[in-house]
């Protein structure tokens, strides 16, 4: 199975999910670096993501929107905090307002992605997501993400 370890800390509001892939570390990194590849896994099939601005450079802002079955297009952003290709990517992520600017009123979370080479040509990827508060978790989950969740329920069931 892809996912090898999951740690949830409700008190610290952190989710860590570790996966292992039989692929070189550069290939795994490429799925974050190349927006056309990123689009193929970030959003669920019913809510595909389109990355408009995407450059993994410290300080850069990544902009993307998702397209729902009803034509709705919620916009979102990342702010890149750390990049050490192909080992580390750290970014804040959140929603955008109608002008496409990072919303000042909406919550955000901090994501830390670490890649490491394991024996046997395996790449391990750990993703740690921290929410700033309970309220933020609820808002983020109720906005945009849950549509994909519901649509993908059968796939998730198959996975578990």
């Amino acid at each position, binding site marked *: 199975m892809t996912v090898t370890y999951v740690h949830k800390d*409700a008190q610290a509001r952190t989710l860590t999910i570790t996966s292992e892939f039989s692929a070189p570390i550069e290939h795994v990194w490429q799925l974050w670096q190349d927006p056309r590849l990123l689009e193929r896994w970030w959003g669920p099939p019913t809510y595909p993501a389109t990355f408009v601005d995407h450059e993994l450079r410290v300080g850069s802002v990544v902009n993307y929107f998702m397209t729902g079955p009803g034509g709705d297009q919620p916009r979102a952003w990342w702010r890149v905090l750390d990049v050490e290709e192909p080992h580390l990517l750290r970014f804040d992520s959140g929603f955008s307002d109608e002008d496409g600017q990072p919303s000042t009123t909406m919550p955000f979370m901090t994501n830390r992605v670490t890649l490491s080479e394991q024996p046997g040509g395996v790449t391990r990827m750990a993703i740690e997501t921290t929410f700033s508060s309970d309220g933020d978790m609820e808002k983020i989950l109720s906005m945009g993400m849950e549509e994909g969740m519901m649509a993908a329920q059968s796939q998730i069931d198959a996975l578990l």
Partner: protein
Amino acid sequence: MVVDYLDDQRVDRLFHALADATRRDIVRRALSGEHSVSALAGVYPMSFAAVQKHVAVLAAAGLVTKRASGREQLVSTDVQSIRRATALLDEFEALWRERMDRFAALLDSAPNRGDQT
């Protein structure tokens, strides 16, 4: 923006409360039910007053509740808030598992794309 201001304060208190190993341990112990402050004080190499202070910080952050029972102060973790956070994390875990499934499928289907780097 009074509400936002208060929210920020609440978040600060929460982070401050969880930043200490003893306080995190108190939250964990008090998950199983009420513990008296004196019983907790017996667990840590510190004074009763120091433990009492830790409990006060946790209570101010809304992580534990305190009630008086005779001379004792009984502490319990606010299970409701922890449960709510856990349920939300469960949802988020499912979202990421699904993403990782697509991620793996993509790696398998397009092994050559990575060679562009």
